[in-house]
């Protein structure tokens, strides 16, 4: 009986405490919420991203903040689940004076939040994921797929493959298999690949892998049967490692496997080691950058004082850098907004949005921030929310990644019409009006 009263009391406490008011922060800070995937099927890959994000924000504070305004990061765990991501968004959006920008690190959460951010007036940075058509700023006012999206990845990857074959003409008749995550994330890369297929006449074999992708033997047996010339992988989390292991087990040469930028990082490959040698992945601008100035600075100023968010040997790895780049873009957008709305002041979401729309990161600025050799200039505008379309390909040599291509640029002639058409479809479905050029000044 006592246990039962205890249980009833517990239930009531749960009910009561959920209505408790939430703590408010004091002082002026620029709040950057961080939606993390530290548990669940993508944990090995999403954890370094969150660590890089947090570490760079700490570095910004040590450098003096954004013109004196300190940054504040609060994490909320989503485990890559859309409804948890939405709940984290609702919880964090008004905290600490209001969230500046969200970076959901999940295409599913991005789709859900795209509906909500216009009403809440908080911008969203979705570098390299999310909706590829959100590069069109005339329809998607609040989405910023800065420095690239899936169609840029697909295009640059195909360009690289074509180059290895001696040009697009030699692609005719070749067979490409696409192993992709059976979800909006995986499917988003298909339109550009299919567009290029129409143009250049190669064959496609589409092989969806149901999440979480722990059993892929049948997929790779089919790959073995069809003997495609190349395999493109759009996978994330443990699916990538499993795919490469199955490729080893079925004897498909890793040199012919190419991943998009979420399918080629250390957690996927380090356990396989030498057997994965030759596997390549296209990276939007940055890869593993242990020699870069910003990494050295983070190690000196943050980790040396024991303030590092994650383990030290992670600093400089691919996904850590992605978090650093994400944080840098978030901060620079706020800095740009401060130029207009008041230096040294805390920026609201709306003001930050203007900042992301008018981002002008020259090479000089990037070098000064410590990104020399890591990034190329990024410049957004009212109707172009992507800012740059540069990418490179790196290859695993058994222990680390090395660059195996020059800078590639996605072909705007092909991508822009696709983006425009898709954005217009979205606008028609939602009965949205496209933005007026006059609206760009807000």
């Amino acid at each position, binding site marked *: 009986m006592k246990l039962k009263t*205890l249980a009833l009391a517990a239930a009531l406490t749960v009910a009561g*405490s959920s209505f408790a008011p939430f703590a408010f922060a004091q002082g002026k800070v620029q709040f950057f919420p961080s939606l993390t995937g530290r548990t669940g099927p993508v944990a090995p890959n999403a954890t370094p991203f969150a660590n890089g994000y947090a570490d760079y924000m700490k570095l910004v504070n040590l450098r003096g903040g954004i013109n004196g305004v300190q940054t504040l990061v609060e994490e909320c*765990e989503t*485990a890559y689940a859309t409804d948890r991501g939405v709940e984290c968004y609702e919880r964090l959006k*008004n905290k600490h004076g209001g969230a500046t920008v969200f970076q959901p690190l999940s295409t599913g959460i991005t*789709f859900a939040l795209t*509906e909500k951010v216009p009403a809440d007036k908080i911008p969203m940075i979705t570098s390299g994921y999310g*909706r590829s058509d959100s590069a069109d700023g005339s329809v998607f006012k609040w989405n910023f797929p800065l420095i690239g999206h899936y169609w840029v990845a697909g295009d640059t990857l195909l360009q690289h493959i074509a180059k290895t074959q001696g040009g697009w003409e030699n692609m005719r008749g070749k067979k490409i298999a696409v192993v992709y995550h059976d*979800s909006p994330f995986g499917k988003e890369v298909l339109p550009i690949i299919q567009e290029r297929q129409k143009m250049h006449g190669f064959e496609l074999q589409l092989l969806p892998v149901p999440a979480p992708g722990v059993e892929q033997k049948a997929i790779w047996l089919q790959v073995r049967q069809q003997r495609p010339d190349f395999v493109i992988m759009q996978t994330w989390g443990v699916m990538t490692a499993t795919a490469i292991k199955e490729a080893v087990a079925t004897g498909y040469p890793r040199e012919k496997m190419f991943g998009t930028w979420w399918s080629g990082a250390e957690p996927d490959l380090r356990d396989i080691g030498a057997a994965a040698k030759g596997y390549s992945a296209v990276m939007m601008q940055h890869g593993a950058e242990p020699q870069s100035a910003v990494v050295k600075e983070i190690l000196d100023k943050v980790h040396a004082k024991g303030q590092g968010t994650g383990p030290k040997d992670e600093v400089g790895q691919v996904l850590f850098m992605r978090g650093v780049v994400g944080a840098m873009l978030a901060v620079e957008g706020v800095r740009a907004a401060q130029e207009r709305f008041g230096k040294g002041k805390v920026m609201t979401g709306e003001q930050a949005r203007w900042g992301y729309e008018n981002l002008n990161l020259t090479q000089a600025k990037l070098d000064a921030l410590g990104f020399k050799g890591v990034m190329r200039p990024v410049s957004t505008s009212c109707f172009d929310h992507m800012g740059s379309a540069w990418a490179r390909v790196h290859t695993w040599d058994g222990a680390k990644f090395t660059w195996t291509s020059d800078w590639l640029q996605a072909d705007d002639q092909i991508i822009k019409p696709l983006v425009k058409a898709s954005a217009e479809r979205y606008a028609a479905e939602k009965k949205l009006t496209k933005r007026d050029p006059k609206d760009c000044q807000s």
Partner: protein
Amino acid sequence: MLYRENGQFKTTYRGDSQIFPIAQDRIAIGLLLAFAVFGVPLLADEYLFRAILIPFLILSLAALGLNILVGYCGQVSLGTGAFMAVGAYAAYNFMVRIDGMPLLAAVLLGGLCATVVGVIFGIPSLRIKGLYLAVATLAAQFFVDWTFLRISWFTNNSSSGSVSVSGLEVFGIAIDTPFEKYLLCLGFLVIFAWMAKNLVRGHIGREWMAIRDMDVAAAVIGIRPVYAKLTAFAVSSFFVGVAGALWGFVHLGSWEPAAFSIDRSFQLLFMIIIGGLGSVMGSFFGAAFIVMLPIFLNQFLPALGNLVGVTISTAGVAHAELMIFGALIVFFLIVEPHGLARMWSTAKEKMRLWPFPH
């Protein structure tokens, strides 16, 4: 003392067979509804609406549907997520393909489509029982998940397979503030709960319970198992389909099949087990518990950690949430296997005698 029925005489059959025969109950429910409609908006902020109240209302509806199937009719089903998905996608297709389709009609039609699918996947229950049926219904879960990923017609040929709705309105009134969404879900829940309560009190409900308790004996005395089981699946899937449509339209706004995965099915099953099988009240209790527990833990654990001087990492909080969730499930099932509803009725019984012990 306060809860006695002294002086409350029923003079009509109608009075005798009301859902709430005791006047205090009627007053309490009336006050609760009044509070829900008028009081909550005054006290609740946007986060409370969006993250706790609306999911609670929609998931209670789904839990109610599942309780009809599992609690009242005894057919264990692990495919509830699939039926929610069918409801959501069907409603989406009705909205998108037919111009000017009203929201309510789309949601109800989505529920009807879920009914059809539910009956089809309920046919195995005529042959298969118990745990075998539970795993057989998983076939529904995975097959429906796959269907919505693969057949692009269902997602209006969107390249990514993700669908979204916006611009909801009912009878001309736009539904975009959290409060309006809350009222819409509350309206659905009240009407459906009333329907459910009457169904389970009636003839069909008694047939379901007979099948649950001893299906062979029920067949012997003339209850048709086919009719009873398939109607249980039909009614349950209708409720669950409507809940799924509401979940997609009102709560998420934009979804993909992963929103209705097997985790959702397990979550709903937890709700009715913790809340109490075979009880309408239990579905609400269970839904409240399961919706609020993760959020409560998420707020409470870091605070507790700070109290003790330990900063728990985000991953640590997430892991602790899982552990405490699992441990609490086990604890509740040990302490009260019949769920919170049984605790509630025990409390009510004590109330009727209070201040006397017996």
